[in-house]
């Protein structure tokens, strides 16, 4: 229902039929500029490209420990495993590479994208499982293990490439974008926190020893090896745990809301380099 209304609003905006309601229009470009300005003004000493390093961009003590861990990062195992999986054909002889542009190498920065055929946001994790299913293989769990290994490898081959998320001129794409924005700013859970409460207003602040990562570029390092988890986790896992942390019941991984918020955040990160896989406390 909400989606329908948003589509209508978007349709009106695209048609230019609603010029007076400026506050309610969807303008990703203006959002993008405001979002980036907010963070670069809040953290004037952090070079723009360093935002993809999350908490390490703003705390020297943490950065030193991180650099020590990056000397030989625990996600290396996941990258190697992902590479091996990528090179192993399915039972039908096809491979993951057959499902992606450029055989899946160096394409992470283009995800998620809005698929105009199906009218929905396609994330990398979703594309990987759809690839499996299209080739007669059962899907993987979205949160860790195999999915983290596959995305770790794909991110690794895309390091340094700049986020290039497009919003096609399609009211449904704009609606998905706005739904993601709405999800990002809506308070939820018994603690009444939104994603933005922690990663916009409180970005850079300490919770115990952890430093809250700024929302700008926050997905660039995914998937991540978290010391707290003692294992790899995907973007799906990060959203699910964020919800639990504010005492909200998480949605199913790859729920439309999660995909839309990934779309929104990735669009906000346009022009920033992929740095994944990453290591985080």
């Amino acid at each position, binding site marked *: 229902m909400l989606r329908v209304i948003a589509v209508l609003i978007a349709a009106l905006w695209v048609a230019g039929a609603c010029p007076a309601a400026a506050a309610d229009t969807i303008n990703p470009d203006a959002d993008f500029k405001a979002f980036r300005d907010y963070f670069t003004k809040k953290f004037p000493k952090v070079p723009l490209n360093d935002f993809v390093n999350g908490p390490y961009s703003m705390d020297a*003590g943490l950065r030193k*420990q991180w650099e*020590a*861990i990056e000397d030989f990062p625990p996600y290396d195992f996941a990258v190697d495993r992902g590479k091996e999986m990528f090179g192993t054909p399915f039972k039908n002889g096809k491979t993951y590479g057959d499902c992606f542009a450029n055989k899946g190498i160096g394409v992470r920065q283009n995800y998620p994208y809005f698929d105009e055929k199906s009218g929905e946001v396609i994330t990398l994790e979703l594309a990987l499982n759809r690839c499996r299913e299209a080739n007669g293989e059962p899907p993987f769990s979205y949160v860790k293990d195999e999915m983290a290994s596959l995305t770790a490898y794909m991110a690794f081959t895309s390091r340094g490439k700049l986020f290039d998320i497009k919003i096609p001129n399609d009211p449904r794409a704009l609606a998905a974008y706005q739904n993601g924005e709405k999800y990002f700013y809506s308070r939820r859970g018994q603690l009444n926190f939104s994603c933005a409460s922690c990663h916009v207003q409180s970005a850079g602040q300490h919770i115990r*020893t*952890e430093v809250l990562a700024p929302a700008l570029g926050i997905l660039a390092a995914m998937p991540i090896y978290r*010391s707290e988890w003692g294992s790899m986790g995907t973007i799906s896992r990060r959203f699910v745990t964020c919800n639990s942390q504010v005492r909200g019941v998480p949605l199913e991984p790859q729920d439309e809301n999660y995909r839309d918020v990934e779309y929104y955040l990735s669009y906000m990160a346009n022009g920033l380099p992929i740095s994944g896989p990453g290591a985080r*406390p």
Partner: protein
Amino acid sequence: MPLKITTNSRHDRTRRLLLKSALGGLVAALALPWLPKWARAADGALWPKDAFTQKTEAGAIKALYGKEATASDQVKLDAPEIAENGAVVPIAVSSALPNVTSISILVSENPFPLAASYKLPPGTTAMVANRLKMAKTSKVVALVESDGKIFSATKEVKVTVGGCGG
């Protein structure tokens, strides 16, 4: 021999397991002499169980070296002031002292303070970097064995997210 070799029933059990797994371990190596040398190098019997199960820092040092340590500015201990997560704390130790034969690291407040001990044959540099778990804020003690004497350096590392899970 800088480290005491302890024998006990658990290590005997380890030996039996090693025999079964036919990889690694002295007994397995003797039984299967055609295994490449590297496959039998690590030997669980070398592990100084007594030192690793001491509950105090002093007890662990005594069990490991049989003597006390002297503080020295020749021992360099590189550890963070605040650990980002007690589950993974990068710690490095180095020394310019001569003839260093072993380096050990203790975390005083851990249930078992001795975390790791390294044996350095002649020719190996007196430097080691590793990652340890810390249950809570604690003194970290680096020990360097040089010419048979034990020298130490100490640093406090703050931990607010403990490395014991839960």
